[in-house]
Every structure is written in C-alpha cells, then in structure tokens.
C-alpha cells in the first residue's frame, strides 16, 4: 500500500521536470546515417544504375512491398526494367538493403512520407533512382563480377586472369 502511495508521489514529482519531447517539425532531430527511412536506388561511381535486378530485396521483404522486372541491355548488363516499392506497406526494416549484393538499394534519413492519397506512396523506378552512390561510395558490382558487359570484357574484372586460350597446350 505504501509502495503504491510512493509511486503516486514519484509520478507527481515528475510534474516538475523538463519534458524530453523534441518539438518536431520546428526542431529537427539528429538522425544517424544508418537511419532506416525512405528507400532509394543508387548509382555506381560511373553513373550507371547499380541495381542488377537480382530479386534479393524483394524476397527479403517481409511485407512483399517490392516488385520489379529484371532485364538486360544488348551488351549483357542487367538492370530493372521497372522497380516498384509500395511505401504504404513498407515497414522500413532494412532487410532489402541488407540483402542487396550491389549496394543499390539503400535506406535514407528521410522519414517524412505523409501523403493524402495512398497511391502517391507507390514509388516507381524514376522516383527511387538517385544520381549518386549514396552511403557506399566506390563500389561497382560489375568491376567484381565475371560477367561481360559493355565496356568490360572477360578477364578485365578485379582478380581475373585473361581469358583462357583454348588452343594452347602449354601447361
């Protein structure tokens, strides 16, 4: 019983402490770079789309709010023909970013996603794609992968030997 009274008294005393509330939007809070906000698609250092349409983000997504269609240009470079995120369903868990093997999909510090019409929360590729590398500068998946694309032949990727000469019998 006394404990109860003590508790009530303690709560009463809190009337005299300063509120911890941050007065958003007048006062903006500090958000760490790894904040999980609005999702973007980044480009590699050469300015090309990083996304290769591997579907790993969509399969990692627990609410299934990512849909895309992979395609290939005439030189074998893969990219998404279309890419859609339904932010009205997104729970900002960041699994897509974790799953992305090319650093293409990234979560940003933008969390101000209010809309009057839910349809405006459906983002297509043109809404998602930014012009920079985002949080991960320098990485270019196609520099590492063995696939041949326009401007990069077989054997020109990192840690690759020149293509094998099949007609050579040299050991």
């Amino acid at each position: 019983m006394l404990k109860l009274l003590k508790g009530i008294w303690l709560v009463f005393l809190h009337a005299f402490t300063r509120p911890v509330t941050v007065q958003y939007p007048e006062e903006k809070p500090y958000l760490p770079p790894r904040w999980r906000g609005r999702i973007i698609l980044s480009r590699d250092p050469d300015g090309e789309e990083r996304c290769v349409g591997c579907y790993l983000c969509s399969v990692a997504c627990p609410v299934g709010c990512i849909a895309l269609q992979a395609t290939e240009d005439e030189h074998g470079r893969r990219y998404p023909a279309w890419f859609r995120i339904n932010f009205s369903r997104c729970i900002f868990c960041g699994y897509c970013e974790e799953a992305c093997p090319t650093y293409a999909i990234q979560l940003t510090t933008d969390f101000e996603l209010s809309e009057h019409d839910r349809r405006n929360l459906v983002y297509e590729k043109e809404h998602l794609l930014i012009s920079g590398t985002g949080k991960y500068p320098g990485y270019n998946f196609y520099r590492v992968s063995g696939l041949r694309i326009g401007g990069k032949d077989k054997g020109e990727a990192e840690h690759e030997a020149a293509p094998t000469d099949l007609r050579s019998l040299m050991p």
Partner: protein
Amino acid sequence: MNETASTLLIIAGVLVTLLTLSALLIWLERRLLGFWQERYGPNRVGPFGLLQVVADMIKIFMKEDWVPPFADKAVFVIAPAVIIVTILMSFAVVPFTPSIVVADLNVGLLFFLAMSSLSAYSVVLAGWASNNKYSLLGGLRASAQMLSYEVFMGLSLMGVVMLAGSFSLRDIVAAQQGVWFCIPQVLGFIIFLIAGLAETKRVPFDIPEAEAELVAGFHTEYSGMKFGMFFVGEYLGIILISAMITVLFFGGWQGPWLPPVVWFSIKTFLFICLFILLRAALPRLRFDQLMTFGWKVMLPLALVNLTVTGALVLVGHPPE
C-alpha cells in the same frame, strides 16, 4: 413562477458548465498526463493546445456515424445516451452552493446512489448490443465490477449519514460546519474514493475497456459521437465523484474568505487532478484481483466503519 425560472436557470447553467468542463477535461487529462510523463501533451491547437478540444469535437462530429450491420440497432443507439442521462441526473442533487442546487431532495444521497447504479446499464447494454465478443466481455466485466463496488460504496456513506442525521446533501454539508467528515470518516472517505474510481471505470479499475485484452471493451464497435458520448460520460462521472467527495467529506462549499462556489470548485478540481494522477501512476488490476479486493477487503472495511461509527454515534447520542 420566479422560483421555476431560477430553477430553470440553474439547470441550464449546470448543464452548460458540466458539458463544457467535461470536454475541457479531455484536454486537462492529456496535458496533466503529459507533464507527469515528461512530455508536453497537446500543445499545437490554440494557446497551450486549448483548442484541441474544439478540434477533437469537430473531428468526432465529422466522423462517420457507423452502426455495425450485426448490431442490435435500437439498443446500440440508446446505450451511450443512458450514461450521459443518468450522470447528469445525479448532478440534480449536488449542492454547489447553499443556493445553487437543482433539487434539494431529502433523499439526495440515495438518489445519487440510484442514478450512478443505473449508469451500469449503459455499459452492459452497449456491450450486448455491439454483438461482438470483446464488447460483450467488457459489458460483463462492467456489470460484475459495478455490482460489487456499489455495495460498499453505499455502505461507506452510511457513516456520513449517521453523523449528519440526514440524506439531504445540503444538510450533510451544513453538518460539516465544524469538522469536515474526512476526519471522523477517514475510512469511509478512502472506501468511497476507491469505489468512486471503480464506478467511473477509471484506472486502475478500467478492466471493462482494458485495451490490452479486449480491444476497447464495451465501446469497441462505437465510433463518431456515440463513442464521444461514452467519453463525455466518463468525464462527467469523474466530476460527479469529485463533487460528491467534496460534498460528503470536505465540507462542500464551506471555506473562509472566498465565495462558496469558488471553494466548491477548488476542492472538486483537486480531486479531479487526483483521479488523473492515479491514472498516470497506477497499473490496471487483474479481474480476479479486482473482485477479491472488493469483496474481501473493501466490504469488511466498510462494515467495520459502519459498525464503529454507529457505535460511537450511539454512545455520543443515545436514542431518545
């Protein structure tokens, strides 16, 4: 003729004041809870967020007034009205000042008890009419809780009646000219406070609407102004119980220097704040704990209080 006019004036005044206050209480409660929880509470609409009430009202009136197709329609509509009507009726006997009272009945206290018991119907009917298992559970809990706490609520007041020798609330206030009844009836006061909390279904006795278990209990299916009426009813209940505590245990309008109505208001306001503080500080009881507490602790205490008071009164004033 003149008396009728003044009564009507008083009725109108009391109604307007009460309804406005109950709306304002929403703001007050949210602000106070905020302060006790180290945040601001509503502070955006108007100065200090005062117009939040207006905004909420606009919102709640604009909302779709939806009656579920599976509900018992007539009862579903009547239920929220019942709570408002019964509580407002109770205010008829409350003496705000020696002159401002709607009806100074000689059985005022009994009338208050009767009316507050009737308000249980509102909750039970709402729970039943919603035709929803959570609502029904909420309604059942409410009926059990209110029945249990009614019993010693009435008993706890009998000490006051014995001391005052009257059921008229004006007489009871007058009887506290010397010593407020909270001194001789300290046990009665505590019991009444607790029973009052239970009557108004406030924390820690809000199990009929326990949102963690029952969605929103008896008003799960309610929306719009019908939902609003339950809310207003709850705040009217807080005011009523606070006013009754003031009247029965804290000398009503009595006090030095200031006019009676101010004294009455100050005392009532303090108890309202106490109600809100309890909500900020106390966790909800479990249903079995609630029943055990009522029947095994409060009821015996109330009986003891009654017996002791009765004995003392007998000793002090032997019957002729």
